């Protein structure tokens, strides 16, 4: 097939910048990185720097102030050079902090990985052990460990490592638990891998980012703890310098010679602060939850940046009349033209279906109307959306807020994620009503029960007290529909409302929607990928491809005589119940990426009827029969008519 012949396109840099660039974008993290790098370089270079011996005492020159000749930062109570001790001490503190982190990370991660992967009794046993370690205040535990092992830098290191193992174990266990239940672990098992192989070859690489994040946020803390133990005299033993023991030495003479303790104090501050800033930066870059854009908070309404006001044209009797809608996503220098000029209108009591595959822009079209496309990165760059006499794209934010859920309401694909899990169905219905209608409490409750009755939910008064998880998928979607109807919507925008439902439930919900729109004369804009569902409910259909409508017309006409080759292919590639012998006609190739759309027809690359003129210039959507239009210069029906 095409894919073997055509070599895959050369790898392009993805829209997202790489890790290091992301880190450098964060100025705080960059600052931290610079400070930390300088400290580490100086500490590493200590043996080569022209420093006096840090342990050489010189009682004559004791407690010299900073900036004295020969002692840039002065001397301490025994006349030792503070600069030299500071640099050597930083070296020790860094070494202890980093090794303690590595030890804690190794053992903690191992415990976490095993507990999360194996689960069951092993998990319980390991985690309860960890809980016991956590039950002691950490400094007390560290003190106890050092007390048993005896004071000394190495013992302090062990104590700090042990105290921090639970922190890693708990973090990693959670992630490991999630990763171990993923399908690729089952797949690896079926590929013949042993448990140890799965744990270290499949699970570990997916947990590694979290281990690194945890380490980067822990090192600073570890250095602080080392300093704490040394300050108490349990870590570094005289005459060896480390930041904590220097601080401890200076404590008694804090008022007579403050520089002896302030200088190591400042060093600890600079070191820990730089590590923490850097660690936060690393976490922001590596954490998959933050990667998906959780740090950029979208505003409440899509930005409208129309370059030119399109002329007003109206379709008679339309409740919603959208003209020339263009919505784009601006991501990392690339412009994704998700919707590239869509005209649609819905009349009272009419159901218009938008059919397309994923990525065709059908949902973005629907979301654009009420400004639900997240900004950033989305923005509406052209078109009008007339609701009655009002241009929705020109309306104020407050006006849009009033219209959302009132004149225009939405029903989404997954009712479980649309409904709030902590409030009862009744609370949520009442909230939807009260947001738009000043009714008394009793009236609102009665109306909520009426709404549930309207969507044929049995025992409506009782069901008001149910939580979403207590209802089945079909019932939840009925509740969502009831909410959409709460304020006498003129139009309902339903985005794949039955895709997540079972066939028998889908049939119920579809017939309910169909009945309701006729009873209440509500227009429906129905988004779906399934021509079967379209047949069941839509009066008219618009087929969407690469951000544009390629064909519009009545459902019967399009299904019986599709004019655009894409529509025909889309209908042909789906198996139809009752026709098992039918050969499935797959569409070769893939849809174009919307940031690199061709000049001419977007479907030309996959189209069996494509000719040179298809690729030359943009193809307009032209009417060719009453109520029907097609964006094709070699349509399927044209030939039939000619013959």
């Amino acid at each position, binding site marked *: 097939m095409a894919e073997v012949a055509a070599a895959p396109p050369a790898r392009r840099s993805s829209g997202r910048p790489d890790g290091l660039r992301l880190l450098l974008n964060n100025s705080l993290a960059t600052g931290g990185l610079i400070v930390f790098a300088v400290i580490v370089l100086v500490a590493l270079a200590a043996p080569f720097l022209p420093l006096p011996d840090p342990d050489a005492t010189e009682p004559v020159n004791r407690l010299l102030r900073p900036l004295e000749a020969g002692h840039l930062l002065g001397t301490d109570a025994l006349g030792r050079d503070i600069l030299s001790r500071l640099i050597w001490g930083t070296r020790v503190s860094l070494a202890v902090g980093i090794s303690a982190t590595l030890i804690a990370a190794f053992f903690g991660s191992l415990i976490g990985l095993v507990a999360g992967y194996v689960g069951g009794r092993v998990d319980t046993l390991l985690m309860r052990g960890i809980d016991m370690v956590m039950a002691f205040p950490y400094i007390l535990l560290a003190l106890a460990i050092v007390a048993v092992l005896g004071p000394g830098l190495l013992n302090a290191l062990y104590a700090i490592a042990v105290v921090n193992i639970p922190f890693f174990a708990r973090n990693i266990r959670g992630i490991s638990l999630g990763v171990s239940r993923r399908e690729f672990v089952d797949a690896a098992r*079926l590929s013949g891998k042993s448990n140890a192989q799965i744990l270290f070859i499949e699970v570990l690489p997916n947990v590694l980012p979290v281990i690194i994040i945890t380490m980067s946020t822990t090192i600073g803390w570890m250095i602080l703890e080392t300093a704490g133990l040394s300050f108490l005299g349990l870590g570094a033993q005289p005459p060896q310098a480390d930041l904590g023991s220097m601080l401890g030495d200076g404590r008694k003479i804090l008022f007579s010679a403050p520089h002896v303790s302030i200088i190591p104090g400042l060093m600890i501050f600079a070191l820990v602060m730089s590590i923490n800033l850097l660690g936060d930066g690393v976490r922001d870059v590596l954490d998959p939850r933050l990667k998906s854009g959780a740090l950029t908070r979208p505003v409440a309404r899509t930005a409208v940046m129309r370059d030119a006001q399109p002329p007003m044209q109206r379709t008679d009797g339309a409740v919603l009349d959208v003209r020339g809608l263009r919505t784009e996503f601006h991501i990392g220098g690339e412009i994704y033209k998700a919707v590239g000029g869509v005209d649609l209108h819905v009349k009272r009591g009419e159901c218009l279906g938008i059919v397309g595959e994923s990525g065709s822009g059908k949902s973005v079209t629907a979301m654009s109307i009420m400004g639900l496309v997240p900004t950033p990165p989305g923005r509406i760059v052209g078109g009008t959306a007339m609701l009655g006499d009002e241009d929705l794209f020109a309306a104020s934010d407050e006006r849009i807020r009033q219209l959302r859920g009132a004149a225009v309401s939405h029903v989404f694909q997954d009712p479980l994620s649309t409904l709030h899990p902590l409030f009862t169905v009744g609370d949520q219905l009442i909230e939807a009503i009260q947001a738009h209608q000043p009714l008394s409490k009793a009236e609102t409750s009665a109306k909520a029960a009426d709404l549930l009755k309207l969507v044929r939910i049995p025992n409506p008064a009782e069901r008001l007290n149910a939580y979403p998880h207590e209802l089945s998928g079909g019932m939840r979607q009925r509740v969502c529909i009831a909410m959409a109807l709460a304020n006498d919507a003129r139009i309902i925008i339903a985005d794949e409302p039955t895709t997540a439902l079972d066939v028998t439930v889908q049939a119920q919900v579809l017939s309910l929607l169909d009945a309701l729109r006729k009873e209440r004369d509500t227009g429906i804009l129905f988004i779906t990928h399934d021509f079967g569902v379209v047949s069941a409910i839509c009066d008219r259909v618009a087929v969407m491809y690469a951000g544009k409508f390629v064909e519009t017309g009545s459902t019967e006409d399009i299904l019986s005589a599709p004019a655009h080759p894409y529509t025909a292919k889309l209908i042909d590639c789906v198996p139809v119940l009752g026709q098992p012998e039918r050969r499935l006609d797959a569409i070769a190739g893939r849809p174009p990426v919307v940031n690199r759309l061709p000049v001419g027809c977007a479907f030309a690359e996959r189209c069996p009827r494509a000719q040179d003129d298809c690729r030359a210039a943009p193809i307009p959507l032209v009417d060719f029969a009453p109520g029907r239009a097609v964006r094709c210069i070699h349509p399927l029906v044209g030939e039939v008519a000619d013959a």
Partner: protein
Amino acid sequence: MHDETLLRIENAGRVFGGGRTLLGKPKRGVHAVQDVSIEVRRGETLGVVGESGCGKSTLARMIVGLDRPTAGRIIFEGRDLVAEAGRDLRRLSREVQYVFQDPVASLNPRKTVRTILEAPLIHLLELGREQRKARLTELMDAVNLAPEFLDRYPHEFSGGQAQRIGIARALAADPKLIVLDEPVSALDVSVQAQVLNILDGLKQRFGLTYVFISHDLSVVESVSDRVAVMYFGRIVEIGSGRAVFGEPRHPYTHLLLNSAPAPGRRSLAAEDAETELPDPYDPPPGCSFYARCPRRSDTCNAVVPALEGVAGADGQMAACFHPHGGR
């Protein structure tokens, strides 16, 4: 060629939960699969349809050894798989493989396609470096992907391509039986046809046997020789695809067929909102479809109907006291 039994499932059941608490109080269990007996014949495609929660995925996982039945036996070419999978999953995995529903989630995001496809070759077939290289080329060719794709990571693939890699992985160990658990339901319709066509080609080319699990009736109808319909953990109807879809006997099969939307079908049969799946913690004493059934009688609520041959239909069986007659 469809006569020899390759896989026989005898009265298999799977209970989740259950057991006893520390104090000896029995805990409630859910019967995900109950008393399922199916034979899969060499070279055929057995379709399994049912709605969410009917136990079809649990059944699939039991066949490939990812889950153990709590009752009954699963016999593959005369070997008891349940006992074998407990000792050594590898022996079973050489014969029976699995294709997952979500193509992207079933590929480790941090491994290249080459590493993913080599795993079964190393661990199951113990092939050397040169043999592996040859086999990889063969596999990529079988699923119609360019060999350049081997050094890419899963996130660089579209859903259809990723699913073809999943199929290649299942194929790698040269199994006799492949269990396909909703292999196309996460894909776009145009891609779905590509994958279905590839599956069909592979079956002819390698003489495979498929167990094809899906909630989509039209897809199952187009690929299956025989079809089993599951409801609430049990098989309610089984028979040749033509018979089950053409002359459904069980009222549930009827309901399913009449609910399915199809291009050109204007009205769908819709039940009342009252009708729901029974509570799995408190299953009804008789037929689990009783509450929704238009043909129910008192017997139905008292006794579980057995899966029995239907009069006048060759090999078609339905678990119903009042089955529909032939259309």
